[in-house]
């Protein structure tokens, strides 16, 4: 049995998916498998690709008779995975299969480990740069055993008060032990994945359930964003609205995104990823009885942070209005006074400040000689610890 299954659910982005498959197949490692779960309208493209692609490490699951929601496609991908550990990535991302070597090292060091996290690089495909963009490369390489209470405070109660809570663990760009995934299914709704925002719902469940969680600062995967990805919404409000509508339509048979007990809607001019993540963590905590003390106060801070991160006054105003509506309707308006954002501080220079900050390198993406997440990963590896040294536990280096 391979140490790791990399799950690659995909829908209607066959060209990116094929590029990603080729990138992962470039690895000499044998200790992994890849399950490609095709949810496209046209199944023939990937089927044809697999005919000429004789790599036993890869398996294709064809589309079903109807289009699945993303969460349902993830569910069947997981069911097909055979590795001892599971990691999901998007079809426009990259994951280095050698992360299996890291997992094996952590298993030796921490026998109870059930979740392994790592830092990620960020990369926008060349077709997704409507304005200046920055790619990122985390540069450090220490290992941390996570303190569960701290993770829970951050993710469930938003203790950092930032526009997005830190998660660091979960099946998306992280690895989860199969036995934990099975426990999660048993405990939470009889499914591996329930909520439409699969990445954060997985983080919630993993952080609630894993015995030991270990994080490596060295990046092992790349969060890619192409023009067709949901994350492209982060660069354009119009795109975000369109994607949110499609997302809502496709997931109508799953857990409802709109909840009367958390009336901040995703499909709203003033919405943001902050709202979507909060709706997910709120749903999880309410459904499974997690203590939410402090969440309203912290979420108000996060909402202010989200508004203040707007690039211009128009976006600031539309977001403020959206949060005001939500806070007015939430819990009888009990928390609405906590949402008091200061006036807009002026247009921000967004995504132009390249350089190194807090051991993360930000790169002016247009100048980087890489066309794909994999090329970018290979580029970035020139400035980070080699996998060989990391998994050997080398601590002494010459400068």
């Amino acid at each position, binding site marked *: 049995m391979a140490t790791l299954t990399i799950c690659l659910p995909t829908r209607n982005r066959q060209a990116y998916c094929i590029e990603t498959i080729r990138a992962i197949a470039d690895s000499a490692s044998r200790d992994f498998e890849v399950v490609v779960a095709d949810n496209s309208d046209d199944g023939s493209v990937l089927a044809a690709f697999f005919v000429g692609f004789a790599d036993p490490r890869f398996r294709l699951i064809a589309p079903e008779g109807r289009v699945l929601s993303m969460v349902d496609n993830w569910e069947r991908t997981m069911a097909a995975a055979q590795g001892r550990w599971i990691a999901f990535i998007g079809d426009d991302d990259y994951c280095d299969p050698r992360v299996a070597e890291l997992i094996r090292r952590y298993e030796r060091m921490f026998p109870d480990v059930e979740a392994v996290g790592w830092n990620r690089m960020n990369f926008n495909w060349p077709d997704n740069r409507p304005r200046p963009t920055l790619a990122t490369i985390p540069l450090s390489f220490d290992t941390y055993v996570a303190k569960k209470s701290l993770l829970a405070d951050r993710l469930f109660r938003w203790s950092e008060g930032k526009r997005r809570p830190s998660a660091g663990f979960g099946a998306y760009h992280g690895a989860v032990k199969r036995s934990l995934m099975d426990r999660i299914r048993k405990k939470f709704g009889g499914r591996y994945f329930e909520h439409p925002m699969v990445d954060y719902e997985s983080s919630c469940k993993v952080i609630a359930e894993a015995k030991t969680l270990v994080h490596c600062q060295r990046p092992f995967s790349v969060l890619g964003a192409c023009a067709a990805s949901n994350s492209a919404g982060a660069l354009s409000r119009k795109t975000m609205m369109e994607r949110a509508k499609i997302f809502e339509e496709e997931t109508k048979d799953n857990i409802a995104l709109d909840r009367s007990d958390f009336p901040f809607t995703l499909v709203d001019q003033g919405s943001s990823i902050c709202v979507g993540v909060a709706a997910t963590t709120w749903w999880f905590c309410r459904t499974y009885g997690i203590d939410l003390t402090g969440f309203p106060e912290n979420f108000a801070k996060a909402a202010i942070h989200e508004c203040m991160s707007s690039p211009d006054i128009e976006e600031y105003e539309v977001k403020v209005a959206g949060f005001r509506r939500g806070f007015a309707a939430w819990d009888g308006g009990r928390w609405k006074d906590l949402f008091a954002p200061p006036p807009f501080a002026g247009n921000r220079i967004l995504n132009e400040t390249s*350089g190194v900050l807090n051991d993360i390198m930000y790169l002016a993406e247009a100048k980087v000689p890489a066309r794909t997440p994999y090329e970018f990963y290979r580029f970035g590896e020139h400035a980070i610890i080699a996998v060989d040294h990391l998994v050997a536990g080398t601590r002494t280096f010459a400068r």
Partner: protein
Amino acid sequence: MTRLSILIPTRNRQAFAIDAARHMLKNPRNDFEVVIGDNSDDPAPLAAFAAEMADPRLKLIPPEAAALAMRDNWERMIPQTRGEWVTIIGDDDYLDPDLAEVIRVAQRAVPKVESLSWGRSYFTWPDARAPREITTLPTRSHLRTLEKKDLMKRAFFWEEATDRPTCPFGAYHGAVRRELLERTRETFSGRYFEHANCDYDSICKTVMLAEAFVLWERPMSVFGTCRASNSMGLRDDAIGRERVGAVLAESAESFEAEGFPFPPTLGITASVGHTIESFKKKYGIELSGWEENFIRACAKDCETAADRDLFARRKAGYGMAIEAWKGPSARKLFKPEYKYQPNVPRFLGHADDKLYFDMDMGGAKSAAEFYGIIDSMLFPVHLLEGRLA
């Protein structure tokens, strides 16, 4: 207005100079010029390049009838430039014309500035590179003023020196105001450059004369080393001795400082030592208290040797010279240690405000391409002014 003249003196390495100039001229700004001082045996390649570019920002100074010494080639270029500021790089180096913007901002912040410098970055051309080489890049980006007295300590007292003084102010990979260059010529012997080590000659004079110094910690240029460059001598001892020998042949009588018994072929420390000592002697500058720092720099020059035999040769050579210079008690201060450990892996990542990375990152084939890659990682020039506001 031409704010900046970028000077590229070159001899018989036309392709390198052409690559640098071609990349510079892609920059749309109009406030700089590139001046190539061709000292090659064959004038045709650069003449053809200038004709092809037909860019008023490019000026080519053709070779004279006979090859010039390097410092004479540098010397003849200055009067043929029109920039308010001047900077000089080697033909296998690169410099970003956006330096003109840095100069503009620095002048607004420090109106008296006459000497500007920036962080250092290094690139070895693929033809001269070991299979895997790690280079460093400063990652800070503050604009700072430096005090003359502190720079004097660095240049003349070898304070904080490595195997050479760490004082980056001068015309070579630094920018100096034209007024300062003219004052330099008037003050010292009627020439801009006197010693064959033109770079350190310029540092000595700039530190003495400039009114104010500004450093932008962010690199704006790349020190390149190709197989044919003098700096290749720092990587290969035999080449080093040959290259220093060639420089000495050009300027035999004026290279060595009197009473300074260090053979210039010993290494970079000895060579730079002659430049600084020649300058001090010629202009009657007497200093004491710098000798111990210099001896430490000599030890560092030995310690950069990856090869044990080379280390031993340098150690013996410097040891003898130090004893001949200041006696056995001085030699006791000279304690180089062989430190090279080929089996210890090299660090990659970020530490002490430096990025350590494999020089092959991005697969740059030239110093200009390498600059393009590090430029993506560094604080953007166009945001400098906003940050100071």
